[in-house]
């Protein structure tokens, strides 16, 4: 898969993971990598970039065992961005399905 294309999709997945709950880096990466072939090198720079763009906030939480963890929390801007990306993605994937065999993603 084209790296640029993959990064776009992973960006959507990261946003979508964080809209459900606040998470720390490792759990985001392991959740996504259960479904698609990604590793830290793909996900971590995206997390940093989106944080810098204001789509995520970070905070540190102390743990009962081990070092404190850095959690990512989606911002209002992040949620807006996710909705925008999601509708773009749905439109795109519908068009692809039509091209491939006339069927729709809904089926």
């Amino acid at each position, binding site marked *: 898969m084209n790296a640029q294309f993959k990064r776009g999709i992973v960006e959507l997945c990261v946003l979508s993971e964080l809209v459900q709950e606040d998470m720390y*880096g490792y759990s985001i990466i392991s959740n996504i990598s259960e479904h698609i072939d990604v*590793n*830290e090198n793909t996900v*971590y*720079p995206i997390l940093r970039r989106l944080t810098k763009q204001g789509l995520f906030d970070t905070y540190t939480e102390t743990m009962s065992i081990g070092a404190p963890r*850095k959690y990512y929390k989606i911002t209002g801007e992040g949620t807006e961005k996710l909705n925008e990306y999601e509708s773009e993605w749905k439109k795109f994937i519908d068009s692809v399905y039509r091209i491939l065999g006339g069927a729709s993603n809904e089926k």
Partner: protein
Amino acid sequence: MKNNYLEELKGLLNLYQMEDNEVNDIVNDYDDMYNNWIETGMSEEEVESKLGTPRSIIKELTEGYRRKPRKQKKSDKVIAVSPFVALVIFMVLGFGYDLWAYSWMAFLLIPITAIIAEMDVKENEHVLTALSPFIAVIGYFILGFVYGYWHPGWLIFLIIPVIAIFNSRKSMSFLALLISLSPFAALVAFFYLGELGHWQQGWLVFLIIPILGAMEEKSFLRGLVIEFTILIGAFGYLFIGYTYGEWNLALLAFLPALAVAFAFGYIEVNYNGSKTYWGFVLLTVAVYLIVSLAFGYWNLTWLIFLAIPVFAIVKEVRGSERVIALTPFLALVLFFMIGFLFDGWVYAWLAFLIIPVTAIVANNE
């Protein structure tokens, strides 16, 4: 391992115009991820291959950042001038004194200058390892052309693995250092004894390796048993050989030593700690002997010993210095392959130009 990893990452991030707190933030995040994977039971090697080497991830991490302008170092000027100096020396020796056979060696000045200038001489003890091929080549040609000692002059190339091991001494005990160096001392002694006409018995000098090796044995009694059976083997071998003239049969005298080695579990490769070095050296000697005996290219097979400095460099030097330090060995292999196999001595020295080229490319990346 983790500290090295994070330090290398930090060093690379510092090459970019990135705020200090941002650099620290990334390093801390990688520290966390590293710890998270360690907690899942992965080894440090596995974690590093999962996270990717700092060099392979740096592009993603620094996207959108400019590189800090590289400070013009004095050494850059020296490297830039060295090809011209080399060319002048080459021309003067060739046209002026008709020393074409030696004059090409002037070009070795270019990689030598690049290595001294680019590798941190004070901080990196492997500079001498990287330079050793040149010292050996120059020494070899002096011994060959001037004194006609092509053989045993080639033994000078043994200084390459010897220097590599010696420069890695910080990571091994004194005894491990001696054990790692012993095969080379033994090889020189073997050829010396051979020249004196003792080829048949001379190989016994290689027993110095297991004799020293057995001193690493923690149990005094076991160590004593090993030393004793080795000595029994050596004396038995010489006794049967000289008395009955049956040198092949005499090898049976080593059966007790062999049985003990198996029983104590020595005949297996151990990849941990300082034993790695002498395990690797033994393996190299074995491959060298097997390949040489099977194919007979003695004038080329010693190149197998270059695996030792390459191993040491890969293990201990990181980043662009590693690439630069490795190029002399690649150059040396190419040089001799082109020379011996294709009789291309006239062009073979060009192989050494890959060193300054690599040094320049590695530093501009």
